[in-house]
């Protein structure tokens, strides 16, 4: 058992409010995703348990992010930014399910 922290990475306007919730906020530009990667790598060493990252940024570093997917921690969660959701978070859950089950069960349910 241990205590750890929560971080939020995203564009300035979207993550503004999270600061007041007591989380660590890292505002970065949408077109500089490399910064996000550096931050995440640093957060891993500092025992952050949860990292929220906005979808537009996550989209650009998807392959790099998948490295963290099967680690116990941190849990990297995609959240929509203030422009609304682009469905990447849902897509990722679906992808995970597809890999495990072998078939796309969400699509079947939608029919």
């Amino acid at each position, binding site marked *: *058992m*241990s*205590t*750890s*922290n*929560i971080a939020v990475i995203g564009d300035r*306007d*979207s993550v*503004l*409010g*999270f*600061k*007041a*919730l*007591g*989380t660590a906020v890292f505002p970065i530009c949408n077109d500089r995703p490399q910064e996000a990667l550096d931050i995440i790598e640093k957060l891993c060493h500092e025992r952050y*348990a*949860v990292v*929220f990252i906005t979808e537009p940024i996550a989209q650009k570093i998807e392959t790099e992010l998948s490295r963290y*997917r*099967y680690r*116990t*921690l941190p*849990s990297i*969660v995609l*959240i*929509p*930014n*203030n422009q*609304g*959701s682009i469905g990447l*978070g*849902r897509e990722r*859950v679906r992808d*995970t*399910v597809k*890999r*495990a*089950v*072998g078939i796309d*069960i*969400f699509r079947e349910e939608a029919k």
Partner: protein
Amino acid sequence: MRSSTHATRMELLRLRRRLGVALRGYKLLKDKQDELMKQFMELIGKIREMREETEKHLVQAFQGFLLASAVMSREEMEGALAFPNKIVNLEVKTRRVMNLQIPVLNLQAERPVYCYGCANTSGELDIALSNLDIIFSTMIVLAEREKALELLAAEIEKTRRRVNALEYILIPDLRETIKYIELKLSELERSNLTRLMRIKEIIAG
């Protein structure tokens, strides 16, 4: 495919033993896969609803901030939010599912979320902030569950590959080899028997 071996009685015994172990391992792994799958399926349903709900509320909260930023200047807003009052502590434990270590997150928050005075801020900011505060705990639960889902998925994939390797490759191969050796040995026995019979005939003749 039959593995190339010497058709000897000793080899036969060895292979039979291996088949026994393989069958037992297969059964265990299959049970593991079923259990993982069960947990996985339970989780999927929960996550799907939760993610949609969270995204919806989060977008609403963001709109609240947008509204607030229309009333207040950006500097004012950043100033108001710059020194958080609330302290969050995330307690991380792990629970075991099979051989997996799955994190369990427990959010502990102290002190209210409002970290500014009433003078320079608008009511919209209050509303937006309280909305965000409400969904934040849901977001943490979502983080926990999505991580569990990913870990389970990876394990299921691995287990399935093992189960398939045993079921479709190792076990049939062993069976085939065992059968081959059995046939070969009985053939040898038969030929030996006929030889003996023939020799007896010659001697008697």
